[in-house]
Structures are given as C-alpha cells and as structure tokens.
C-alpha cells in the first residue's frame, strides 16, 4: 500500500502526523521536507534573541529522532517539482514518490515589498529556522535595525531586539501597532512601553528606497523623511504557498481551498496550516493549526470528522506590554467597547445581538485570556 505523504515539516505537518499516530500506528507515512526536518519552535523565532538562544537551541527534537518517535519515513532537503494527480505520484529531487493520500502542509512565504534603490535585495525576513540563523549572524555586526511592519511579528521583534540593546525603528503604513488585529485604543497601548525600550515608531508611511550609506543603509520613506539602519527586517505578512497545488489543477484562492474535512478539490489531497484556506479562512496561527491537525488525523484514519474552531486567542509576545487578542473578521459588524482600563485595556467586540465575538487584553489584563475566551459567543 502506498503511504500517506505529508509535504512540510513545520508545525502543521508534524502535528497531523503526531495526531494520526495516536489513532493508528500502522498506516505508512512519509514526510517530505525541503528543510532539514528538525522540529523547532516557530513561535520563538521572533522572541528568542534577547534570551540569547541560537538556532540550534530552538530545535525541540532533531529530524532523526522525530522519524523514530513517529515511525515514519523522512525525506529531507527534498524539493517537490510537481504533483501528478492521475498517477497519484510526486516528482521530487529524491525521485518519484507514490502516494495514497497527500497532505499539503507547505507553509507560507514572507511577502516582499518591492523597493527602489541599489540594495533592496538585502532586506531580511524570518520565516524559518535557517532565516533565524542568518539573522543572528547579521545582528552580530549591526547596531540599528529598521523593521518594516508593526503587526504581530514586527512588534515581537521590536520588543526582543530593543531589549537586546539594538536601536529599533518600526515603519508601518497603518496608524497604530497591530492595526489589523485590534482597534486604535488597544494597539496604542504598546506605543509607550516599547518607546521606553528605545523603539522609534514611524506610522502612516512605508519604505520606498534603500541605498548603501557610509555606514549601513539609508532608507527613504514615502512621507519624504529618511532614516539609517544597519539591518532591515521585513515583517509585513505572509502569502500562502499555493503554486504547487495550482500547477496541479487544484482549486486555489488566497490559500489552497479545503473544506471542513481539510479536503481540497481532489479527494485524495488535503491541506492545512499557513498554506490552506479552510472554509474560507486563512489562519496562520498556532491554535488553528493544532485543531486542523487533529481533525485531519481523524479524516485520514477513515473517520467522519470535521474541524471545529473554538475561541482561539492569539498571544502577542511583547513582554514590555503583553497582549492577547481574539480577533474579529475585517468585515464583522459590531463595536469595540472598553470594559476596563488601567495599566493596559480590556476591550470586547459586541455584535448587533449584543454577543461578545472578539476581545483584546493588554498589559495587566493579558492574563485574563482564558476567562474571556469562555465568554465568547461562537
């Protein structure tokens, strides 16, 4: 019998395998990764620097140990060129692989904003452990850092690198931190605590040009101002990796389109994690991946299962001012209400029927995450 093949060794790929092994020790599974297959902590990539953790320290379980624990065949440093859906086989740099079912856990690519100037290609982004290792090397020679993007990853890096002693600037076209996740009153709670660490905020503008300066780089912003930095880090968002699926004729929208069974338009091919659009939503966070992994494991084990997402608060790791948020859809109808304010704010999003459908907790309220999640109307 041909194996279930899982493409990707990130949290999504390894979670579905781990969950499936709890249900079934016998199904043959092959996991294919273009990385080295080590299992590492992705959430730590944007907050490990100040703790002086190098890339090796973020590895929780090495690849060989994962393969042994999970009883799987592991093909690392292998690129998949194409999926042949009729022949149910993959064309890879490690030869042709036949699958019974295929799981796409391909992840996402950092979005690159095109810049003018002669050194635009030196912008770094950190989306996997190898990127993190490169960042640490680059940081060894840098003193000042410009971060493009004041969202979750941008704010976490800003906090982490400012604590480590770097002069950090954050440039974001929005008007306050974490603008895509929360209202102004909540996001602006981060301004002062991070400014006290030395973070310089530049909102309402973007980087347009990047040129070599006498020391480091000179950035020209869209509002006509400029700044210098030794290192430029981009954290403006992720784009699901969909090309492989698209080339194979699988339905793709923003992500690889799957239903509540995590099944794509091909009934032998499934997707989850940052590459997937599950019932209309791309949710590149830890909790949705855990839930999807568990549901997909049951589906692959032949059970009649569907993914159900409970309230899933997202934790923003900014120790200077911690934040937990249960975000609402961009087009959600309702109002943000202030429930409490002190060293931070507690806000709830209330819909037309007076149901609490989202919340944000900052500063002293961040620890109330579980209690608030229980109050959410799902």
């Amino acid at each position, binding site marked *: 019998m041909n194996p279930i093949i899982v493409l990707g060794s990130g949290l999504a790929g390894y979670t579905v395998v781990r969950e499936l092994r709890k249900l079934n020790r016998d199904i043959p599974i092959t996991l294919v990764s273009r990385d080295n297959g080590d299992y590492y902590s992705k*959430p730590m990539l944007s907050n490990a620097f100040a703790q002086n953790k190098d890339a090796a320290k973020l590895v929780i379980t090495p690849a060989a140990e994962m393969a042994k624990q999970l009883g799987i065949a592991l093909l690392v440093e292998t690129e998949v060129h194409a999926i042949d859906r009729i022949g149910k086989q993959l064309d890879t740099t490690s030869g042709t692989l036949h699958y019974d079912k295929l799981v796409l856990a391909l992840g996402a690519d950092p979005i690159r904003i095109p810049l003018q100037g002669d050194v635009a290609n030196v912008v770094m982004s950190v989306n996997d452990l190898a990127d993190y290792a490169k960042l640490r090397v680059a940081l060894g020679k840098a003193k000042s850092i410009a971060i493009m993007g004041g969202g979750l990853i941008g704010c976490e890096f800003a906090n982490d690198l400012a604590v480590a002693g770097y002069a950090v600037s954050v440039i974001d076209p929005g008007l306050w931190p974490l603008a895509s996740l929360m209202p102004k009153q909540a996001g602006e709670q981060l301004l002062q605590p991070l400014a006290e660490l030395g973070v310089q905020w530049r909102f309402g503008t973007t980087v347009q040009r990047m040129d070599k300066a006498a020391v480091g780089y000179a950035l020209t912003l869209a509002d006509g101002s400029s700044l210098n930095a030794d290192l430029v880090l981009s954290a403006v968002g992720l784009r699901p990796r969909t090309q492989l699926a698209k080339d194979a004729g699988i339905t793709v929208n923003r992500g690889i389109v799957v239903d509540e069974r995590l099944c794509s338009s091909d009934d032998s091919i499934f997707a989850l994690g940052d590459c997937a659009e599950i019932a209309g939503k791309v949710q590149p966070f*830890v*909790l949705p991946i855990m839930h999807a992994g568990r549901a997909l494991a049951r589906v692959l084990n032949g059970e009649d299962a569907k993914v159900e997402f409970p309230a899933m608060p997202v934790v923003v*790791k900014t120790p200077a001012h911690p934040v937990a948020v249960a975000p609402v859809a961009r087009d959600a109808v309702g109002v943000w209400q202030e429930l409490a304010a002190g060293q931070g704010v507690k806000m709830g999003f209330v819909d037309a029927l007076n149901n609490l459908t989202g919340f944000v907790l900052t500063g002293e309220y961040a620890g109330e*995450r579980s209690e608030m*999640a229980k109050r959410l109307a799902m």
Partner: protein
Amino acid sequence: MKVWQCVVCGFVYDEKVGLPEEGIKPGTAWADIPNDWACPDCGVAKADFEMIEMVGV
C-alpha cells in the same frame, strides 16, 4: 516531581518550580493544573497539546 515540555514552543513546566507568576504554586503536579490553563509562551491550551515527560532531568 516531573518536568513537562510544550510540544509547540518548547516551553518547560517544572512541577518543582511551578509558575508562581501565574498563580501556580511550586510543587503543583501537571495533573492538577486546570484544563483551561494555556501555555504562557504560545497560548496553546493544556487540553490542546501534549506535554512530553522529559527523561533525565
């Protein structure tokens, strides 16, 4: 006393040390931590991840 590790982010819970800043006293067994407790580092709920019993700690 045992030591447990979050499989998502590597966060370590040591029963001996507890998590006093979260109101969990030193010596609290993993089994006695409430089910709605969430990993302080990555936010995964207790019921939503496995803790690995670490050997040789």
